[in-house]
Each structure stands twice: as structure tokens, then as C-alpha cells.
């Protein structure tokens, strides 16, 4: 294991963010079973290093586009855990006033543009956000997250071509967790090295260990800086794994317990923790402090969500239009 060139402060922050996502989602699963959360709930457990590492390298005025598996991205982009939890509770204090639920978290302030439940639906939008920055001469990056399954969709390929042709400042971040729902990568994609197709569109492409938060941060920073400087789009494949079911409705018939167990040995949180310990950046006290802080935050989010009011039904049609038709 290579030496980690990182301040204790920063390392703790990365760790705490991953722990926050993990504990937050464990609580979501609990609340789902309790019937407090409904609809589709897609957990990011096992993949936390991706959002945490990648978003640590972005700036506030960069844009983020994510999928329906975006609790982590939302929390890191500044939506408060209470607002996310309240959203899943369908409450008026939710970040989308209870209209979006788990799959549709947005933050105007955090420049998080979804929360898109159409696989690959966010890719063209990311191109447009990047185009707006380019035309407005803003030095911003649009980070676009999507799964391995999204690479099957036509919209993905159209977006790659458009971004490459117009040199749009898009950073494509493929969260390759080896499955699209129940379909393994090798059964949905003819080429399982996901860097090859972007490369064929002349987009510089690289694969990264999606379980190594430090490597992700470093690689994304390098790529994002190039994109920001006008080098055109770049593509990173983040090789990761989801430890939980696809959603709460999934019997996981398509993969073996062994396979899951093997990947769990590479738990991004445990691995990072171990590394920080080895370098003496962290100890049991610090870890329990983190866990305590996170537990408090999550508990507070649940409490707030429980107590929050429902959006009045009279507001149902509010915000359908910015300029209401007369």
C-alpha cells in the first residue's frame, strides 16, 4: 500500500463523509422496512468512495448530474441529511418538497441537477450544462455520474460524440458496479473494458479502483483540472461494487453470496480506515468520534423527518410552471 500524502484533517473528512453515507443509507433501509420510506430505494452501500473521492475534487460552481442511486452525491453536494431524509419521507421539508423521493434529489445551490431515474437520461443534460459554461466562458466542470448499464443506452454514445466533437467540459464518471440490475456486465456489454468506447470517440479514458477513495480523488482532480482548462471531455471508469440489492425489491438471484463476500473484503471504508491507521492518521478514539457525530446527524435527520409537516395538497400544482398560464 503506497504512502498516503494527505493531511489528517482531509483524510478524516473523506472518511467521515463515507461513513455518513453508509450510516445514513443503513438507516434508510431500516426506515424502508418500517414503511416510512416507499417507492424505489437504491442504496449506494459499497460505492461510497466514488462519490466522496470524485466530489472532493470538484468546486462549488461545478455541475453534478447523477442517477437514482444518488443519496451520497446529494449529501456531499450540500443537501442536509434532514432534507434528504425528509424527502424520502415525502415531507414538505424534503429537498424537493416530497415530490421526488429517493430517486430525485436536487440542489440548485449545490448545482446538483438530479437524481435522474431514466438510465442514461442525465448524459445529454450534462453536455448541455457544460455547453452553457463553455458559451458563458465559465471555468467549470460538469461531472456526470452513471452506471455500467447506462453505457448500453444510445443516449450515452450520442453524448460522448457530442462532448468530444464540441470539446465540452464534461467529466464522465462511470460507476461500474458490474451489474445493471440483475444483468452482469459481460451479459449486457460486448466490451467489458468500459474505457474503450469513449476512447474510440477520442475521449481520453482511464479506469480507476473505485474502492480507493484517495486514488479516486487524485485521478478525478487531475482529470477535472484538464477539463476545466479546456482540454475537452474526459472519461473515468470507477470499478466498484454494490454490496446490497439493486433496490428493495431485488431477490439477488443473479449473483452468488461468495462473490458479494469477496467484494466486501474490499469495503472502501474499511480499507481507507486501515490505511489511515497504518499511517497513524487515525485511531479508535477518532473513529468513535466520527461514528458518534454521524449517528447524531442521522438520528437528527430521522427525528426532523418524522416531525416535519406534509406538503399541503393545495400545493400540488405549484411550481409546474414558472410563469403560470393565465
Amino acid at each position, binding site marked *: 500500500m503506497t504512502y498516503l500524502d494527505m493531511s489528517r484533517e482531509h483524510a478524516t473528512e473523506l472518511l467521515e463523509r463515507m461513513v455518513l453515507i453508509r450510516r445514513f443509507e443503513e438507516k434508510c433501509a431500516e426506515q424502508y422496512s418500517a414503511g416510512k420510506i416507499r*417507492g424505489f430505494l437504491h442504496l449506494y452501500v459499497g460505492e461510497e468512495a466514488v462519490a466522496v473521492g470524485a466530489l472532493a475534487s470538484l468546486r462549488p460552481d461545478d455541475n453534478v448530474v447523477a442517477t437514482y442511486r444518488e443519496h451520497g452525491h446529494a449529501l456531499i453536494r450540500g443537501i442536509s441529511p434532514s432534507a434528504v431524509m425528509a424527502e424520502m419521507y415525502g415531507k414538505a421539508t424534503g429537498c424537493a418538497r416530497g*415530490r*421526488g*423521493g429517493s*430517486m430525485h434529489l436536487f440542489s440548485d445551490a449545490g448545482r446538483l441537477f438530479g437524481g435522474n431515474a431514466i438510465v442514461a437520461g442525465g448524459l445529454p443534460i450534462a453536455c448541455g450544462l457544460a455547453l452553457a459554461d463553455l458559451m458563458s466562458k465559465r471555468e467549470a466542470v460538469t461531472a456526470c455520474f452513471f452506471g455500467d*448499464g447506462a453505457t448500453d443506452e*444510445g443516449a450515452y454514445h450520442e453524448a460522448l460524440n457530442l462532448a468530444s466533437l464540441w470539446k465540452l467540459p464534461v467529466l464522465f464518471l462511470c460507476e461500474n458496479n458490474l451489474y445493471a440490475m440483475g*444483468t452482469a456486465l459481460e451479459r449486457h456489454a460486448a466490451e467489458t473494458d468500459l474505457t474503450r468506447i469513449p476512447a474510440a470517440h477520442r475521449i481520453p479514458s482511464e479506469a480507476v479502483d473505485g474502492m480507493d477513495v484517495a486514488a479516486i480523488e487524485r485521478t478525478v482532480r487531475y482529470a477535472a483540472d484538464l477539463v476545466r482548462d479546456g482540454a475537452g471531455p474526459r472519461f473515468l471508469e470507477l470499478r466498484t461494487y454494490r454490496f446490497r440489492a439493486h433496490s428493495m425489491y431485488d431477490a439477488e438471484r443473479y449473483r452468488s453470496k461468495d462473490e458479494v463476500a469477496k467484494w466486501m473484503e474490499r469495503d472502501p471504508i474499511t480499507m481507507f480506515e486501515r490505511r489511515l491507521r497504518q499511517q497513524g492518521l487515525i485511531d479508535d478514539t477518532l473513529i468513535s468520534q466520527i461514528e458518534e457525530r454521524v449517528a447524531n446527524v442521522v438520528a437528527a435527520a430521522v427525528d426532523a423527518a418524522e416531525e416535519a409537516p406534509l406538503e399541503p395538497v393545495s400545493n400540488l*400544482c405549484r411550481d*409546474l410552471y414558472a410563469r403560470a398560464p393565465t
Partner: protein
Amino acid sequence: MTAATATYREAVRSGIRRAIQQDTRVFLMGEDVGRYGGAFAVSAGLLEELGPERIRDTPLSESAFVGAGVGAALGGMRPIVEVMTVNFSLLAIDQLVNSAAALRHMSGGQLSVPLVVRMATGAGRQLAAQHSHSFENWYAHVPGLKVLAPGTVQDARDCVLAAVDDPDPVIVFEHQLLYNVQGTLDDDAPVADVWHAAVLETGTDLTLVTYGGSVPKALAAAAALRSEGINPEVVDLRCLRPLDWQTIIASVTRTHRMVVVDEGWKTGSLAGEIVAGVVDRGFYELDAAPERVCSVEVAVPYAKHLEDAVLPSVSRIVEAARKVMPRHG
């Protein structure tokens, strides 16, 4: 086997199984229909039973695999394509409109597209704006397509079998809230004439016209109305293209009043077409303006109370029925 209790899901599965067993040209393909067992577990177990040639998992490429269904049908197969939900069918709608529906006519009758496309439709499970659409009326608008929407357990099986038997492209809409509904399934019964509407309950005071996921709501509303002394007839359209005007008009000619229940957004809904079509064909039979119970025109929200406020409900149907009835006193 004679009639037994089964779910709508099991009935669809039974139809698919039978169609595949009866004809070597029939196969099922779609996202996660195999190992996963189908997003709504409709095809659970079929991969093991029928093998990977006949139960094919596709990539996440709606345009390609729906188009491949068109091509396979042109090539002599009888594909059943599952598009997970009507929401995602928008990514393949070009293939359905511009190829499946058009090829026979625009080739001067040379080509046949015996394709079945099944998809889940509707809202009610708090899946929010992008997973709660009802676009039945869009498909019912397209000449060259036939459109079925089973609202009962028996019809769920029969629609699959009727669609596979048909030489034309057929879209079958299965409402996602119906999959767990239990009912009677006679798996030996001959395939019903699902190409025509069914009068589920006869009545004299008004006609409730509905289909698919709104059928149970209409039946519940009918029961409630009967307890108030209003006696509705319930017409389940079953086939949305072509529409069975004969059955609809016959009923309205008896009752002179109509309420249409349709989960689509009101403006541009199938319910609108039913009203306009009845006006075309039986204007002078109507004793009151028909009512439409549709979804409120807003992106369907996640929160339960908001979603409930959007969708047709038993109480809204009852209210609409009261409205078309003559004022008492």
C-alpha cells in the same frame, strides 16, 4: 386444471409460458426478464423452465431490442418483447410508430410484423414523476398498432395469448398495481375475445367506462353507488385500439349517462376520446354531460398523499357519477 385463484402476475406468466410452449417461433426478450425474473417478477422461473434461447435478457437498449423485435417478427419469429415500463418505452416509441405500425401498410401489404410488446404502466407505487406515466392513449392513437389493456386476472392471460396469436403488432399494457391482485384464472378456458369490451356489471342508471388499472376502482365505485341506490353499468374496454364503439354506445343508449375513468392526464386523454367518440355516435342519447375522472395534470409526485391526490380514486368516481345523475328533488 379448472378455475383456480391466481394473481394477475401469474396469469400473465401463464400466458407467456403457454405461448412459448405452443409455438417454437415465440420467445420473450427484455431487460432482466431472465436471471432477475423480470422487474415485476412476471417471468420469474421461466428462464429455468424454458431456457435462455426463449427467455432472453437484453442490454439496456430499448430502441435496439424493440427494433430487434420488429426485425425478428419480419424474419418469421413471434417475439414477445417486455419493455420494463411505459416510461422507458419513450426510448423505443420511434420503432413502434415508424416501423412496427407502418411497415405493412407502407410496403403495400408485403411485410408482416407479428410482434407483441408488453409493458407495465401506471402509477400508485410512489415511484414519482419518471416512473408513473400512463401513455396508453399515445399508442392507441397509432393506426397499424393494436392495443390491449387487461384489467382482470383472466384477461391478463388471455391478452398475452390473443396478442401472440395476432398477425399484427400488439401492445399490451399491464398496470403495475394489478400484478398482486388475485382473481379467478381458468387456465384451460379458450382465449376470450379480448378485442372487444366486456360489460363487467350491468346497470341502468349510468355507464362507467374504464380499463386496466382503473377497473378495480370502477368496480368499487359501482358497489358504493349501488348502496346509494344508483345502479351503474361497468364497461371494461380491454382493447384500446380499435375501440369497441358498439359495446360503449349500446350501454350509453341504455343508461344515457357516462363517466369515463382513465389514469392518463385529463387533457388529451383516452377518456377525452371516449367522450368525443360517444358524442360523434350517440350525442342525442346523452341526458347529461359525461364526466371524466383522470389524473390531475402534474408530474406525479412521490409523497403518498400527493400521489393519491393526483390519481383517479373511488371517491372521485362516485362524485362524478353523482354529478351526471339527475338532481334529486
